[in-house]
């Protein structure tokens, strides 16, 4: 009986360390870095093309306001995408919640506070329905929420036409408690000169801070990364994966409600198809912010910069005197650029310094063959 010798086990584990990242690399792969850099470039571009209007406080207030409105829903979409899901019904939620609040306050004569609470409850319910359907069926959320999107749109049109004969609800400014709603969702927060900054900016900043805090500092944030990055693994170590995902859908719905209320109280009317088509802008903002379509990686702060890019582009193109149709071309191009950059980072982060899977398999195969041969021929070709 031979004594055991552990064969040739490396004594210096530090040699095994790979992909030691430089500080520069670590900055570059931060998900929000690309969006920040992009925002600076876009700002400079329009500062050059649009000139003085762009640099004025009034110009600034317009693009900030547009950006903030995208952000009301887009920040929650970023969290949802980090959690590995989509929500295509997030756009129509603006019109849906606005319609419900409007119908409750105008056609049912409720106090605005009650209308707000009830429409919020309905939004939460829609979020739960989306989440539960996705989690239970294990279908891609893309298809499930595409279904809810169309179903809601049809339902909204049917309901408002039955009740009001039109596809919008007007007259909320005459409802009792309107002033409170307007203050919460549609007032001017502050002036700089003649430039007005609306309260949606406050909502936007508050959501960005809260969302980022949850994602980076709390358990729930860790779970969001994990259910997006490796759902089965998360479940195996005891993360409530389904509850996390349903919670994300609810968060999107609640943020969609805030968005809906802002539009309702700013315009005093609710068009039921308000927000339809915007779901793609929310996804673009999240991708610009470094969120991967496959989940598990991204940033809320990055998505906020993504919203800023969207807002600047939308306001900057007409101010620069370009053809407004170029908006789509421009957005498409930066979306592609961001998606390519994200993919490169993802590849780096999941494979850096490691041999490719094929090389690993080849090595394992070689080793196995070698050992079989050694075993079969008795200590290395002794039968020669």
């Amino acid at each position, binding site marked *: 009986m031979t004594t055991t010798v*552990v064969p040739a086990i490396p004594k210096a584990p530090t040699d095994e360390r790979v992909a030691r990242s430089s500080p520069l690399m670590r900055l570059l792969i931060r998900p929000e870095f690309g969006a920040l850099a992009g925002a600076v470039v876009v700002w400079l571009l329009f500062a050059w093309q649009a000139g003085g209007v762009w640099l004025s406080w009034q110009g600034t207030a317009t693009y900030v306001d547009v950006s903030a409105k995208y952000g009301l829903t887009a920040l929650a979409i970023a969290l949802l995408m980090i959690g590995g899901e989509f929500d295509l019904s997030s756009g129509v939620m603006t019109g849906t919640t606005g319609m419900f609040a409007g119908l409750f306050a105008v056609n049912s004569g409720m106090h605005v506070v009650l209308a707000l609470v009830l429409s919020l409850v309905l939004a939460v319910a829609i979020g739960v329905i989306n989440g539960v359907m996705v989690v239970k069926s294990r279908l891609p959320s893309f298809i499930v929420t595409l279904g809810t999107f169309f179903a809601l749109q049809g339902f909204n049109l049917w309901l408002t036409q039955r009740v009001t004969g039109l596809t919008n609800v007007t007259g909320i400014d005459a409802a009792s408690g309107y002033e409170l709603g307007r203050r919460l969702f549609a007032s001017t927060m502050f002036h700089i000169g003649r430039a007005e900054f609306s309260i949606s900016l406050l909502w936007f900043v508050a959501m960005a801070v809260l969302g980022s805090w949850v994602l980076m500092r709390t358990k729930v944030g860790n779970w969001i990364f994990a259910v997006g990055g490796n759902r089965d693994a998360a479940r195996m170590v005891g993360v409530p994966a389904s509850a996390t995902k349903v919670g994300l859908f609810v968060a999107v719905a609640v943020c969609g409600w805030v968005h809906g209320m802002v539009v309702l109280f700013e315009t005093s009317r609710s068009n039921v198809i308000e927000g339809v088509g915007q779901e793609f802008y929310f996804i673009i903002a999240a991708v610009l912010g470094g969120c991967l379509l496959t989940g598990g990686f991204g940033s809320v702060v990055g998505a906020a910069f993504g919203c800023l890019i969207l807002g600047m582009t939308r306001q900057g193109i007409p101010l620069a005197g370009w053809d407004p149709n170029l908006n789509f071309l421009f957005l498409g191009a930066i979306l592609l650029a961001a998606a390519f950059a994200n993919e490169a980072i993802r590849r780096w*982060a999941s494979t850096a310094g490691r041999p490719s899977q094929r090389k690993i398999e080849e090595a394992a195969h070689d080793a196995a063959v070698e050992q079989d041969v050694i075993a079969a021929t008795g200590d290395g070709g002794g039968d020669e």
Partner: protein
Amino acid sequence: MSDPLGEPVGRDFDGHALLELQRLSKFFGNVIALQNITTSVQAGEVTCVLGDNGAGKSTFIKILAGVHSHDEGRFLMEGKETRFHSPRDAKAAGVATVYQDLAMAPLMSIWRNFFLGSEPTTWLGTIDIKKAKRVAIEEMAKMGIEVRDPEQPVGTLSGGERQSVAIARAVYFGAKVLILDEPTAALGVRQSGVVLRYIVAARDRGLGVIFITHNPHHAYPVGDRFLILKRGASLGNFAKSEITRDELTQMMSGGAELEALSHEIASLRA
């Protein structure tokens, strides 16, 4: 590390093994997945379970990990008859399983993966990130790995290192028995050596390790006990002193098949 057969090394004061299986069987309908399997693992020892594909290794793991329940025989934890009804039961009893895919999110940092599902919190309810990073570094150091940046994504670690994160995590969260499912299967020779080293490190910290593999050359150097499975049945349950490396290799691969292979290779060379 080599202990003579039957010596009370690693046995508790009652002389019970940490985990013991007696004539364990598992059926799926009329398929016999495992039949009359007997083996044990002591604290501070490594029991290797060897078998080719289809030998019943995964059923074996799943019974120990609480995914399946056994149908016949006895399953003893520290001398007490046990039956796990869920992976949670197994975890609570101190049996941790490190699967091949390691249950990690590659894009998440080392410390986030380490504490996933059991995050330490401050009185504010936020994650105690400082503590999480410190513990991750300390626990990895105990496995012999120096982590410089706990923010590094797990996906950028080598295969062997990711194994060690999974092992260190299981140990930190109170595992007494560590089941390693083919940890060297996807690795090259050098990385396999690294993993074997972690197995030895876990053993030396007093854990009972169950090392599942199809490679006798990986099993023999680190193992104290060897269970060989073939088509759901046990070909034997040996202490190290009862079997040599060559015998193990022969049994594992089926002697006759290997001899045929050896002739085939010899004729190729001629």
